[in-house]
């Protein structure tokens, strides 16, 4: 399945957003996720099914002004 993760093309077989985070080795309670421009809350990641060409954003805290 073709996915775009943080702007990068990936070819992965992850059924859900939670699976994708495990596959890509993302961990931490400071991550925020969105699929196709919609926020996916932490509690909903396991039930958020991914489809071909989904655009996934995985954000985390950084310095800001």
């Amino acid at each position, binding site marked *: 399945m073709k996915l775009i993760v943080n702007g990068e093309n990936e070819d992965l077989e992850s059924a859900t957003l939670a699976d994708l985070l495990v596959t890509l080795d993302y961990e931490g309670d400071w*991550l925020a996720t*969105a699929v196709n421009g919609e926020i996916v809350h932490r509690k909903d990641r396991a039930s958020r099914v991914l489809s071909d060409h989904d655009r996934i954003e995985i954000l985390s*805290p950084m310095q*800001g*002004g």
Partner: protein
Amino acid sequence: MLELYATPVSSRLLLGTARYPSPAILADAIIVSETEILTVSLRREMARGQQGGAFFGMIRDLGRRILPNTAGCHTASEAVLTAKMAREVFGTNWVKLEVIGHQDTLQPDVFALVEAARILCAEGFEVFPYTTDDLVVGEKLLDAGCRVLMPWCAPIGSAMGPQNIPALRSMRAHFPDVPLIVDAGLGRPSHAALVMELGFDAVLLNTAVAGAGDPVQMAGAFARAVEAGRSGYQAGLLEPRDMAVPSTPVIGKAVFS
């Protein structure tokens, strides 16, 4: 005491966390500034969750209130989504709403700003809008539900200091009961003192501290300038006059010739 969305705040200096020479210098500058509110951001995590985690841990340990920003957003929808993601990560309804309208000046797109503010306020966010000194935009932001306004005084990171003092004065006069925070454009402690003397409630700094030769010392200098300006405003400033006025009383002066 200053209240921002019903939260009492004793330090009138809000500090950004970007562009410091090192995390240790950032931490020291935060401590010396005595700020209670730190701005932070969200970015794509490329280091498998570790990069943001280290920064988040440090910020959490410092125990300050977090004001996440939507820096870099150019549309209302981008800013709204970023704000929602920040709320999830930082566990706060506060958001510094930035919608950039011009690449060179980083001037806010005030139309998209008002639109995003309306959406976010309706969803329970407590919005700190980065805006211009335009009174009509200020009115519209208040109509949208904002209870704080954060006008620029010069372009972000420019260190130019207040470019339009009459506009800042009229903003203060027009919104006497709204907390007004000068966000962006301050370069020196004297700039901060000046806007505090105009009656602004607080300042938000980043580059002026982070980019100084010694950011920790500069954090302290700004803290004292903000306090001095505020205290001067409260004490009642003398208005400038055209003519000299002798400070020593003339009455009772000896006549020697």
